């Protein structure tokens, strides 16, 4: 009976999705709606698809890495090699991204697989928070963009602050629980035939992880696009001239833009004329961790309940640490 109800509910949801998207498509192409509405729906769809297309390769890579961890990492091997200190474990997690160069679309599912295969939660949290910045691609892009503008100290502070925030978040939120993906459970319950090719098993795990996370990326991309259409970036930029609001405004802009950490340094470079260096530091530290694309993904891994505290912790740490290095004259 329950299965039948679920099937009916799923069918109704599918029809509603088709109807909602169909209304947008039909109105956009054929109905005589106002030019302003067409501009806004065009802009929404362009931004939504732009964020999604750009995220898809990284999300797919993350699903493949996550599936590889799930299939090949021995939990006992990992448990024997990690230190007992939570601080040290979190620190290792924060630096792990250097060897798995993926942005947040990939790091969050990979973090879940790490924890699911026996890694401490603090390692998973620190990895998920830091990996979008602590990786060689971001180091190169940040250096190219900013070493000649604000000097090497600015580049190094981006990485230093990210590691500090990742470690502190992992330590300050010890009660975070990693929710296994529905597909992990399904995969574990699924009995593999002895002669099943490991490559195919890996692809099936990757498929499950991809479909699982893709839902949250689509929610996040929709939210980011909707907010960009409703609240033009120019409004946020107006706040940048206020010395007290510049840092939160830069963080808000980064969250709304939801761009990939591998190239956000170049976007920040185009904002040099609008934001102070410390506000840009906040943009570069906060944006790769928290944006409208990553929040639903974090919720998929930790559940929705701790998300407000998680986001607030990272936001406060970013503001406090950025303000501190600014007051000390280091940026």
């Amino acid at each position: 009976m329950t299965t039948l109800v679920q099937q009916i509910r799923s069918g109704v949801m599918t029809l509603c999705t088709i109807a909602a998207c169909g209304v947008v498509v039909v109105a956009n192409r054929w109905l005589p709606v106002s030019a302003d509405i067409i501009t806004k729906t065009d802009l929404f769809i362009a931004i939504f698809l732009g964020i999604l297309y750009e995220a898809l390769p990284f999300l797919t890579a993350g699903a493949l890495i996550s599936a590889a961890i799930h299939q090949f990492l021995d939990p006992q091997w990992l448990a024997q090699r990690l230190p007992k200190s939570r601080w040290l474990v979190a620190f290792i997690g924060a630096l792990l991204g250097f060897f798995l160069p993926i942005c947040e679309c990939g790091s969050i599912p990979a973090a879940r697989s790490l924890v699911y295969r026996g890694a401490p939660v603090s390692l998973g949290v620190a990895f998920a928070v830091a990996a979008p910045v602590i990786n060689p691609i971001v180091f190169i892009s940040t250096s190219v963009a900013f070493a000649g503008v604000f000097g090497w100290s600015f580049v190094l502070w981006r990485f230093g602050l990210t590691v500090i925030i990742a470690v502190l978040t992992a330590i300050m939120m010890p009660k975070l629980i990693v929710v296994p993906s529905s597909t992990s459970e399904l995969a574990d319950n699924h009995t593999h035939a002895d002669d099943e090719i490991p490559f195919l098993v890996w692809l099936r795990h990757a498929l499950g992880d991809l479909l699982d996370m893709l839902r949250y990326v689509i929610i996040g991309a929709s939210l980011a696009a909707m907010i960009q259409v409703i609240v033009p970036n120019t409004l946020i930029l107006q706040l940048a001239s206020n010395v007290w609001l510049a840092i939160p405004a830069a963080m808000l802009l980064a969250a709304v833009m939801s761009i990939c950490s591998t190239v956000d340094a170049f976007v920040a470079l185009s904002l040099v004329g609008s934001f102070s260096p410390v506000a840009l530091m906040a943009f570069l530290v906060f944006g790769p961790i928290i944006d409208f694309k990553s929040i639903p993904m974090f919720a998929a891994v930790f559940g929705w309940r701790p998300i407000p505290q998680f986001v607030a912790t990272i936001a406060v740490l970013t503001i406090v640490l950025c303000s501190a290095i600014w007051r000390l004259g280091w940026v």
Partner: protein
Amino acid sequence: MGMTRMMSWLAGILLFAVAALLFVRTANGQMALYIHPRYEVLMYGCGAVLFALAIICITMPIPMPRHSIQFLLIPVLFGLGIAPRALGADAIGHQSTALNQIAQRPQSAVANVSAVDTTQWNIYEWAVAASIDPLALKGKPVQIDGFVVRNSDMQLADNQFMLARYVLTCCVADAGGVGMHVQWANSASYHSDQWVRVEGVIDLYDVNGVMQPLVIAHTVAQITAPPKPYLVLQK
């Protein structure tokens, strides 16, 4: 056919549609309306992996995560249902992150105005040069392509329009409009979003005490919109 098999088939078809969208849009150049061209290779790679995963979905059904079909439908319907269109004059008020707020930083290509052929500069390069030393630009020859912006809130003179381009760093989410004012006697005959090539020389005008470049047009010719209409940074 069992429910699991049917849902897995559906997911496979939708994944195949997404992979096809990535391949086709990249191959025909329309992907450049959404993302920076540097990602084109990644699009092909991602499309190939999604294609393989679609085959897995169809040949070896797996239980689907809840509502994954419904979520997959959204990009497929939007991707197939709405023809890709470049951002235009109407969106410039929303997407104007970089509009005349270009970073003041050394740009060797544009810093030495006297030594370069300024007719090779695009609008972004003119905007960067203007942010460094607008006075050095006076009298320099210009040849730029862009689309016309004639929004009512821009308070342009009757013989002026704005020529604009969008600049992309990552994807459309960070696209910023960059524009230059153009003075041309028949400005009113051009409407917003019309692509034109403007040739002329730079003059300066005072905006609240800040000198801004103004193109005194000698010729304005209508052109077809380029297949890749966005200027891209950091190739």
